[in-house]
């Protein structure tokens, strides 16, 4: 055994050497910010190629989480960036969905080979900080006159910040909206120009729409059900700034009487009012059900706008998620992060790229081709966006709802804290536990996990 272990080590050493040699220039093994190792590699490169200036190569990882040909759009944006900045070369890498993307990035971080810039869920912020993977962007923002951070919607800026620093740039952002089938509204004797505005109307309309073999309403509950729960919890809160987590990512406030009521309302939709299918409704199947006319209304991410617009054979409307004590919806989606374990030159190039990708013209292009919300106000003043929203006014609803939008659940060890809540919500939806018990259990689990970060 020992012999084999030794052999393995030798073999591993050899392969590592090979891999290391194959990396090419410009990727010094240890790049502590502020050391001068990079200058020498740059010199070496120059000497090798006899070119006055090597373009800086940066890798860009991005996920796609909604229907539609978004990879083409992103690749196109990267190409136009390189035309504008010929001394920077971007390699866009499509990495699957958000989860796969995070895993690939983490593997890269652990192997000291992270991407230079990447789109990740806004909720990954604390995990990225705890693994020391990303850099704060304050210096770039302070030095950069044309960044104009006040142009970004405040609801999207909230989750780019932690401990007094800014760590990311809003890029691929969404919020929850209500989609409704206008033809079914007509058939049920409802006015298709008047979607439900509050919980009572929601229940009443869904009851009327629950006929002819389709259900009145669907709210997905299997993937990240905490997101939908956050919406209901804020809508049911007397405090306009209610939040299910503390500001510093170290505290969870799941178990409150108002939150229990909110979860109870979710359960009642199926069990008491019987306007929604029982059990855990699948995230990905919900838009399909809506498009196929199996449900008259659904609560879903605004990121599905293009998918529904392209595939629905009927006239549909979208509206704010109905209010109870107030309107409210969490934001969702991903931001652009810049990574630590590369060189200052690459970080600067990555910042240029992040800035370009979120500039008004690009934000407008990305929003109109995906259905994600444009991340900054001026994006809506561009010609492209005007043309898009004139032809498709539904796209403005999610933006208008931003005044009621707030930060998605994000804490230290987000994976464990959010799944504590998500799993209990699923149990409640499946009828295994009541609302009060579910939130109590979720709170206990979250407290246990967060205790490590409150030492």
């Amino acid at each position, binding site marked *: *055994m020992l012999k*084999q*272990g030794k*052999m*393995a*080590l030798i*073999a*591993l050493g050899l*392969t590592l050497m090979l891999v290391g040699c194959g990396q090419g220039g410009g990727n010094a093994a240890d790049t502590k910010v502020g050391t001068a190792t990079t200058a020498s590699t740059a010199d070496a490169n120059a000497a090798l190629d006899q070119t006055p200036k090597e373009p800086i190569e940066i890798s860009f990882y991005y996920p796609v989480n909604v229907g539609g040909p978004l990879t083409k759009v992103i690749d196109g944006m990267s190409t136009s960036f390189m035309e504008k900045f010929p001394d920077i070369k971007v390699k866009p890498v499509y990495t699957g969905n958000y*989860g796969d993307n*995070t*895993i690939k990035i*983490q593997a890269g971080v652990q192997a000291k080979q992270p991407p230079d810039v990447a789109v990740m869920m806004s909720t990954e912020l*604390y*995990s990225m900080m*705890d*693994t*020391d993977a990303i850099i704060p962007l304050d210096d770039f923002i302070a030095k950069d006159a044309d960044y104009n951070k006040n142009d970004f919607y405040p609801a999207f800026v909230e989750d780019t910040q932690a401990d007094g620093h800014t760590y990311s740039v809003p890029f691929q952002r969404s919020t929850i909206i209500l989609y409704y089938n206008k033809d079914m509204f007509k058939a049920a004797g409802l006015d298709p120009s008047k979607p439900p505005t509050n919980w009572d109307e929601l229940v009443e309309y869904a009851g009327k729409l629950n006929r002819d073999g389709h259900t009145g309403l669907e709210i997905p509950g*299997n*993937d990240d059900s905490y997101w939908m729960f956050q919406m209901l919890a804020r809508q049911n809160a007397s405090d306009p700034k209610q939040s299910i987590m503390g500001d510093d990512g170290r505290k969870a406030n799941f178990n409150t009487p108002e939150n229990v009521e909110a979860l109870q309302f979710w359960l009642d939709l199926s069990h008491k009012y019987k306007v929604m*299918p*029982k*059990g*855990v*409704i*699948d995230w990905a*199947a919900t838009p399909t059900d809506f498009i196929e006319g*199996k449900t008259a209304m659904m609560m879903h991410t605004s990121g599905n706008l293009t998918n529904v617009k392209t595939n629905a054979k009927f006239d549909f409307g979208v509206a704010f998620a109905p209010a109870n004590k107030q309107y409210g919806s969490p934001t969702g989606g991903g931001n652009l992060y810049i990574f630590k374990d590369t060189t200052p030159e690459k970080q600067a190039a990555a910042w240029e790229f992040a800035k370009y990708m979120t500039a008004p013209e690009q934000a407008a292009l990305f929003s109109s081709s995906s259905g994600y919300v444009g991340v900054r106000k001026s994006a809506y003043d561009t010609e492209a966006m005007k043309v898009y929203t004139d032809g498709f006014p539904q796209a403005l609803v999610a933006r208008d709802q931003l005044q009621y939008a707030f930060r998605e659940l994000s804490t*230290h*060890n987000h*994976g*464990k804290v959010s*799944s504590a809540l998500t*799993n*209990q919500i*699923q*149990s409640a*939806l*499946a009828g*295994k536990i009541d609302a009060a018990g579910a939130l109590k259990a979720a709170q206990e689990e979250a407290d246990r996990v967060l205790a*490590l*970060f409150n030492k």
Partner: protein
Amino acid sequence: MNTRWNEKLRRNGFGWALVLPSLLFLGMFTYYPMLKSAWLSLFEQNLAVRTPVFVGMDNYKALLHDPVFVEVFRNNIWFAVGTVPVSMALAFVMALFADKAIRGKGLVRIAFFYPNMIPMIAAASIWLFLYMPQFGLFARFASWFTGSEVNLLGNPDTVLGSLIVMTVWKEAGYFMIFYLAGLQQIPKDLYESASVDGIGVLTQQLRITIPLTMPTTLFVTVVAITNAFKWVDHLWMMTKGGPDHASSLLLYYIYETTFSFNDQGMAAAMTVVMIVLLLVISCFQFAGWERKIHYQ
């Protein structure tokens, strides 16, 4: 004396040289990661600590108190209990059928074996559709049975059973191949002389076929049980281990702990538990069972 040593060295050296390539790969991709996991399992390495802290056996103690781990482990035991005997019995019957089929032998074999040929992800997509409430075939069947809408994968009581059914469908054809090989080893004259003595077909199976395919049964049992602890891909497609861990299995939970919760130490401890478990199961093959089996 010296010549003997030289002789030995030459012979052994040649043998070692022959196994060297496999040894290198095994070392790099099996033994080294195993040892590294064992080493890592003694540390606390998660999001709460910047540098790993040596904690000895604490991770293993924490595992016993982790209700999710206990539940996942129990799920996996049930998953093994549900899939192994049924898929083996089915494989045996299918093998008898494929062996005796007068016409279309090849077709029958292909029909039984094809579930094993399609990738798990594709199979999971197909079955996801079959279980889809309202329009999935099985969901329709179940709701006709119970008289109300049934969401088989969205209910903690039915989700594991649904996945077991799918796994049996996928596995049985693979084990059938082994049984087919086993059946062809049995001399035909045994059956002929049994027939001459006027022994019925059923008795022949009980007295001849089953005892003589015992070595196959043992081999397949070990493979099936270890497989039951290695299934993971369908969970991504179908349930993500939900609702509330009701369908989560050991390997999936290890993956989740590593990549979603970033808890390397705990994940390593679970990996070690799993490796030990699989080694113990594999040892059955070399232990007492061997001697109880009637080979010829």
